[in-house]
């Protein structure tokens, strides 16, 4: 399974995790097959990211590179307080590798 932004969703994909609102209420249950109107509604509800099952998703090198950059950017932001510290750099690096692997597999 992998995490996609709502604009990356395509009809026919299956949710691999239940979508919840900010209060934790379940909106759409895992296993639901997405169609274009559901995707549209998710956009309207400003659901940022959604977990979907792996079928029908093609990952080319360019996509992987984009993902890597996104993860790197997000980790850089989280680690902004602890830069220039070897142990924290090492931690950041293993998290990057792991998160990327999780996205691709």
């Amino acid at each position: 399974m992998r995490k996609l932004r709502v604009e990356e969703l395509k009809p026919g994909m299956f949710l691999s995790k239940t979508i919840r609102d900010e209060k934790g209420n379940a909106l759409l249950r895992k296993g639901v097959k997405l169609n274009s109107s559901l995707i549209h509604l998710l956009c309207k509800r400003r659901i940022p990211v959604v977990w979907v099952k792996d079928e029908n998703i093609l990952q080319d090198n360019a996509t992987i590179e984009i993902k890597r950059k996104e993860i790197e950017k997000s980790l850089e932001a989280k680690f902004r307080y602890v830069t220039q510290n070897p142990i924290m750099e090492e931690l950041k690096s293993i998290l990057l590798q792991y998160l990327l692997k999780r996205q691709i597999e």
Partner: protein
Amino acid sequence: MKMDEIRKSIDRMSKLPTIAVMLNKCSELMENSSVSASAVAEMISKDQSITSMVLRLVNSSFYGLPQKINSVNQAIVVLGFNTVRNLVLSCSVFDVFWKGDGSTRFSMFEFWKHSIGCAAVAKIIGSRVGVHQFEDAFIAGLLHDVGKIVLARYFRDDFLMILRIVQEKNMLFKEVEKQILGFTHAEIGGYLAKKWNLPGNLIEGITFHHTPSLSKNNTNLVLAVHLADIVCRGLGFGSGGDDLIPQLDTSAWNNSGLTMRVLEKLLPEIDKEIERASDFLSVLTEEENKDEQVASNQDKFWSKNQ
């Protein structure tokens, strides 16, 4: 505000004793070897709300037991005293503290997600660094940020001010707390834990979760919580109000014998356990296991948007 004021307010909180009474009775009964499982079960069963929560958890996919458990007594026989005591503690705390502060800036769901994620990760790391009772690492992880809830609930103005600065200036929550209050949620949580008469390792786990090397007797358990907090933030699981990674306490880390290589190898297991912990939270919030509730939410979602 001075820490003294917070202490006085905590002393005055009317709902808190419920948890303390429940816990003390549990511990008392469990420490006394002549007391039977059924005596403990009977005491717990007197609180129906806690009992039903405990039974829902015990029967959830989190434990994945082959047979249905119908009573607290049966749960103690199958899962053991410590696990049930910890479940009772989790449910009692959750029962009192689940409700949000009404602030749009702070999501209680994300907060508990972070807390439960930390609990699951602390348990895994705890077992790796030789924490004998790694179930306690789970509870320490679950409660490590309880001081933030005290702030959100009882010192709302200060809490909202801290949250606003955290988000506007993108700072660590504990740094803003130091600036505004002169102390942090860790100290508040530690005081509350003492008030509840929690065991020393849990008090230290909460008080020193940002500074495990200051722990006197439980450095490894506290490190497990400290590291769990960092890993959950890194993996983006839930949020305790800020979205930044604090500095790892290198002294405690170096003494633990852990290496980044070991941590790297633990990540898949940690991720799986975090996923399981989501089930734990779903049961506590009564959403996932109620199909009709989900269906009704789905209906609301549709009707609102069409």
